[in-house]
């Protein structure tokens, strides 16, 4: 044992525990102030940093990049796992257009604005690329905290776009940094080829890993339920690692692997989802804490003017303009496009990406890092704080009923062929007001429980199904169409 141990480790864990606990507890303030919860984690990091109350000296950009990358991998995998693939398919094309052309157009506009503010073209382009990706988690954390639900189409567009645009921003940033290191010569054609190659390899590895993992997970019998999430975690790391080693986009791969697995029935699915949800949260906290520690507030003041101007330009001009133009062919209502444009908040990705030029020792990279930090924070505070209000004013709130207070999840070791789903009873449904014994259920389907006014009811044949009920129906997968003919679409959880 080295001298000072175990006290040195204990001191580190105490500091880490205190920071983690402060961040977790502070997350409750997200609803009150209407700011993305992740931003609060960032502030805890800043407060604990060299110029804050904690005086923790941290200046290791390599370490921050590694942790940031690992955290993003876990966050993207969790995002993919929870994407409702069936419903999201309808917005696949617009999301991909926003994530590719949108990122390029935003990069172009922001870099032009940065150049107009006196930043050299090459560095302005790099800055544009770094801040071009959005973070749906930032928007959803505010919406969730304030109990607002978005129209499905709008919510899914934001979600899918932010999953797909991270890879694009990463490719642009790494390629531009490499080009700048190599003498500042930028060629559009090789860059376009590089982007296409990375996306193609990333997509191929991502899908292949998802399909192979699903095949394997159905066949291997692991001795403990807790090993299943360990296996999916391994798949998540492998998907990113292999895709990146093959010169593909690891971030795209890991998102698609998550989506491929999430769309399929998995053994111990409840446990797997819980673990990845927790890992996703832990990653968010860790990443933002660490990025917060890297920041020197005094240095931020030096870039405040340019940073603020660019943040305003990005939020008010670049992002809304790009979104409205690119969504126009997809027949979105103007209010939907405007909303997607306004709430395209930035998250941790730009800050992680801003460490790449620093690590590459690009001249002026630290100034760039500070500016990116400023743009992310200003952009998250201003449009972020208006999210609940804008959602209401633009009328993009969902008319769907609130989610049930109860949540039943059936965890199965292997696929049984039956599913338990919950349905909200609207007055327009054929079963509204009917006795259960009169409902023409397909073979094998039955009501297992009803939630009414926050209380649970064990149903019998004489129980009436009332409007406003949440009815839990167990049915074989092949009977789903007939069940939904009677009960409408199942609730998404």
């Amino acid at each position, binding site marked *: 044992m080295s001298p000072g141990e175990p006290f040195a480790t204990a001191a580190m864990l105490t500091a880490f525990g205190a920071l983690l606990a402060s961040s977790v507890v502070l997350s409750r303030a997200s609803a009150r102030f209407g700011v993305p919860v992740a931003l609060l984690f960032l502030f805890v990091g800043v407060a604990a940093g060299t110029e804050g109350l904690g005086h923790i000296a941290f200046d290791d950009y390599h370490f921050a990049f590694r942790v940031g990358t690992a955290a993003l991998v876990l966050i993207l995998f969790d995002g993919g796992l929870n994407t409702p693939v069936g419903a999201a398919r309808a917005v696949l094309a617009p999301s991909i257009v926003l994530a590719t052309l949108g990122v390029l157009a935003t990069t172009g506009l922001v870099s032009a604005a940065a150049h107009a503010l006196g930043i050299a073209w090459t560095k302005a382009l790099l800055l544009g690329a770094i801040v071009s990706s959005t973070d749906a988690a930032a928007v959803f954390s505010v919406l969730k905290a304030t109990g607002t639900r978005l129209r499905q189409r709008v919510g899914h567009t934001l979600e899918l776009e932010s999953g797909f645009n991270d890879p694009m921003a990463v490719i642009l940033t790494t390629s531009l940094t490499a080009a700048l290191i190599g003498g500042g010569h930028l060629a559009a054609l090789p860059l376009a080829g590089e982007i296409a190659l990375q996306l193609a390899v990333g997509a191929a590895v991502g899908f292949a890993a998802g399909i192979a993992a699903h095949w394997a997970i159905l066949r291997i019998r692991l001795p403990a339920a807790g090993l299943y999430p360990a296996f999916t975690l391994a798949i998540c790391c492998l998907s990113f690692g292999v895709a990146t080693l093959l010169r593909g986009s690891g971030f795209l791969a890991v998102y698609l692997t998550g989506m491929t697995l999430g769309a399929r029935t998995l053994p111990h699915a409840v446990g797997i989802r819980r673990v990845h949800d927790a890992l996703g949260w832990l990653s968010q906290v860790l990443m933002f804490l660490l990025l917060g520690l890297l920041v020197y507030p005094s240095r931020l003041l030096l870039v405040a003017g340019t940073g603020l101007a660019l943040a305003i330009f990005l939020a008010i001009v670049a992002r809304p303009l790009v979104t409205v133009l690119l969504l126009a062919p997809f027949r979105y209502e103007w209010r939907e496009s405007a909303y997607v444009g306004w709430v395209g908040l930035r998250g941790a990705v730009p800050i992680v990406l801003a460490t790449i030029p620093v690590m590459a020792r690009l001249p002026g990279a630290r100034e760039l890092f500070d500016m990116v930090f400023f743009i992310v924070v200003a952009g998250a505070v201003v449009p972020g704080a208006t999210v609940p209000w804008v959602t209401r004013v633009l009328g993009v709130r969902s008319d769907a009923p609130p989610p049930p207070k109860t949540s039943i999840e059936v965890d199965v070791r292997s696929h049984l062929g039956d599913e338990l789903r919950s349905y909200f009873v*609207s007055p*327009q*449904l*054929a*079963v509204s007001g*009917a006795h259960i014994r*009169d*409902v*023409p259920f*397909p073979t094998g389907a039955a009501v297992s429980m009803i939630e009414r006014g926050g209380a649970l009811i064990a149903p019998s044949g004489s129980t009436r199904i009332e409007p406003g009920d949440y009815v839990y129906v167990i049915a074989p997968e092949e009977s*789903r*169409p*007939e069940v*939904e*003919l*009677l009960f*409408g*679409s199942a609730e998404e959880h």
Partner: protein
Amino acid sequence: MELREFFSEDAIKLELDGETKDDVLKELIGLLKLDEKSDGMLYKMLKRRENLGSTGIGRGIAIPHCRSLVVNKLRVAFGRKSKGMDFKAIDEKPVNFFFLIVAPPLEVSNQYLPVLGKIAQFSKEPDVPQRLLALTEPLQFLDLLKEKGV
């Protein structure tokens, strides 16, 4: 209770003209021969039900349905669109066959759910889509229901 008792020849149309979901719903409502105001009310109710999830149950079949004050007894209609159309069905495939059911809000004989169940059951029979596509006149539709014993 037998399904064919509810269908009449004039509420069966073997070539619907509508090209969109809304047009087809309006055309089916037209088969019930109600007044214009009732047509409008019925259309609104059917749309509300469709917004809760498409009644296209797959295999080219949709069963739009609702309760409404505009009828005083259970009414049904059948329409066919041979080339199929997008009805946002659960299997995402085009829909060719439409069974419309409209019931009054209060029924003495409680026929709404049994009729809905019977049509869903009839639709599940393997040869039904093919047989419905082969119909050349409305009467054959009634014969098919009779043959299937529904």
